[in-house]
């Protein structure tokens, strides 16, 4: 079974996530795009794991999922707090900590 389609799919997913992070203002969308990029890399890890016939890539994928889950908890909490105080979830508005 060729790995090429999986690598291409992963690259497409990562690019979509990347462009989403760079262009979208809504914090939730940005967040989802980050998840997209994480899963793109997970896909790649598992693909090469299968191709090489060992488990290290799959273990790494599990780690990424655990970290992503923890990150979702913290990230959503921050986004919610920002939304409560400012009535907006735009990442461009939260710029007071500059300089």
């Amino acid at each position, binding site marked *: 079974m060729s790995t090429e389609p999986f690598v291409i799919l992963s690259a497409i997913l990562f690019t979509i996530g990347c462009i989403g992070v*760079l262009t979208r203002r809504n914090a939730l969308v*940005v967040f989802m795009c980050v998840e997209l990029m994480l899963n793109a890399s997970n896909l790649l890890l598992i693909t090469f794991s299968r191709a090489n016939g060992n488990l290290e890539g799959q273990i790494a994928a599990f780690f990424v999922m655990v970290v992503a889950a923890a990150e979702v908890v913290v990230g959503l909490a921050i986004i919610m707090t920002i939304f409560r105080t400012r009535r907006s979830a735009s*990442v*461009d508005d939260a*710029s007071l*900590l500059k*300089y």
Partner: protein
Amino acid sequence: MVTLESLPHLPPVVGSVPTDGVFSLLWLVIALPALGAAILLIGGKRTDKWGHYLATAAVSASFVLSLVLFFGLLGRDGEERQVTQHLWDWFTAGSYQVKFDLLYDQLSALFLLLITGVGSLIHVYSIGYMEHDERRRRFFGYLNLFVASMLVLVLAADYVGVFLGWEGVGLASYLLIGFWQHKPTAAAAAKKAFVVNRVGDIGLSLGTALIFVTFGSTSFAVVSAASSQASDGALTGIGLLLLLAACGKSAQFPLQTWLLDAMEGPTPVSALIHAATMVTAGVYLIVRSNFIFSLTEDARTAVIIIGCITLLMGAVIGCAKDDIKKALAGSTMSQIGYMVLAAGLGPAGYAFAIFHLLTHGFFKANMFLGAGSVMHGMNDDVNMRHYGALQKAMPVTFATFGIGYLAILGVPPFAGFWSKDKIIETAFADNVLVGLCALVGAGVTAFYMTRLMLMTYAGTKRWEKGVHPHESPKVMTVPLIALAVLSALGGLLTLNGWISDWLNPVVGEHEEHHLAIPAIVMSLIILVVVAAGVAVAWFLVGKKPIPKVAPTEVSVFTKAARADLYGDAFNDAVVIKPGVAGIGALTTFDTTVVDGAAEGTATVFAAMSAQFRLLQNGFVRSYALALLAGATVVVLALLAVNFG
């Protein structure tokens, strides 16, 4: 002129005789007034009631002890008249050792009597003079401190010890000139005296250092024994540095400017410190260092020149002053000029310098206290133009002042006649020019003292409204009478040449000077010059009415004399202005170059930081872009390394 070869022998090494009997009490002479000062100054207000009595008692006890010691010294043989008392080892630095030793010999014996004797009288006088001053206790504390320091100065057997006393009297003088510190003029005068004295002190400290370098020790005993082996250059250098020290303390040209301002202090201070004792410390230093000065003709010439300049300057300044105390201060400068001149004449003049110092101590203290008594009666007015006709109102003051006047003029048989004539004679024997200076000085002295007498005691009443002159209380007049007696009889010291014989072991034997004319003719010439001075004063001041306000249209000379011969202006132009300019330049260098380098570096970094700071723009997406760019660069770099 006395040359080196004609010196028969130098004074013997001092300090060979240990202390015993009454001489073991020598330290008490200093300790008594020092203790008095400590009790009064530390005790504070608790001693207000009886402090002045304690201070007077301390100095009087010191005087009695000095008398006992003096008679003890008289009773000894000539060779045993030098007593050294070892108190403690002061400090040691390598091979250099300074012991705190007291040296009691013929010279310090006379000084002890003068300081404690005149000091006691002035303490008594001050009880009356300072009666209404609420800080009287403090005043007496300072006076005691002064007496103790002055005694350290004249008793120390080491130049470092002299320096201790020297600084002590400088401090006491500062405190007492500025005693009425609420007056800005007094505070300024005190500061001026202190600063000008520092210049002289540099001379003493450098002189002491040079003595140590040359002789390896600073004690009189070692230095006097070794001085004849030192090089001429070192001796002259030491001599000139000690002369600078003497100039500062004794208000000699060019450091004379502080003395006239020092008259801001209470009058007893002017009498004790700025006429009778402290200002003569310079003369003491020169005479005490005779083992240096006798060997260096150059330094002695400098001493003579300084003495001549100052004696004429002081006399001229005295002529133009309307302030009675400043006129007397000019006179003090002039008379100390005589002493310095005599000390510069070498072994021939040392004894006469000390003799004049003693008689001057009597009659000048007398006249200063008399001036204080006059001021006391005139509501503290010092302007002689507001005096006049005080002879009737203050008979005792007038009589005692008159004796002081005759003494300073050098009218026989009063004290000044004997001492001043000797100096003028010796000066003529040394050099005609120097003699003429001294002679002219005597004439000018007669002029300004007669002017002072006429303006104060004779003529018409020019009193301000509401002033009722009255004689001072007994506590003030009795010291005046005592000092007047001393001014009248001070000449007895030279009976049979006693004072020269007495001091010879200290200052060295010398040949009799040879005068072209008999001494009696010389005395007559001096008297004629003095009489001329009196006559000029009578015609210029006595016969004309004295205006209440000083006339402004006066000759250039009067203007110069009123401005203290531009001593302050000279210092201003030569020392202060260049000093201020130099400091200004240094300050500018510091603020622009030194600070500029440090602050400039900081400014550059601050500006760079300000620019870099702008990268933090607060937009999360731009951070993400930077992150992406960075990651891309890293990946490209890895690819380039691995496959390049």
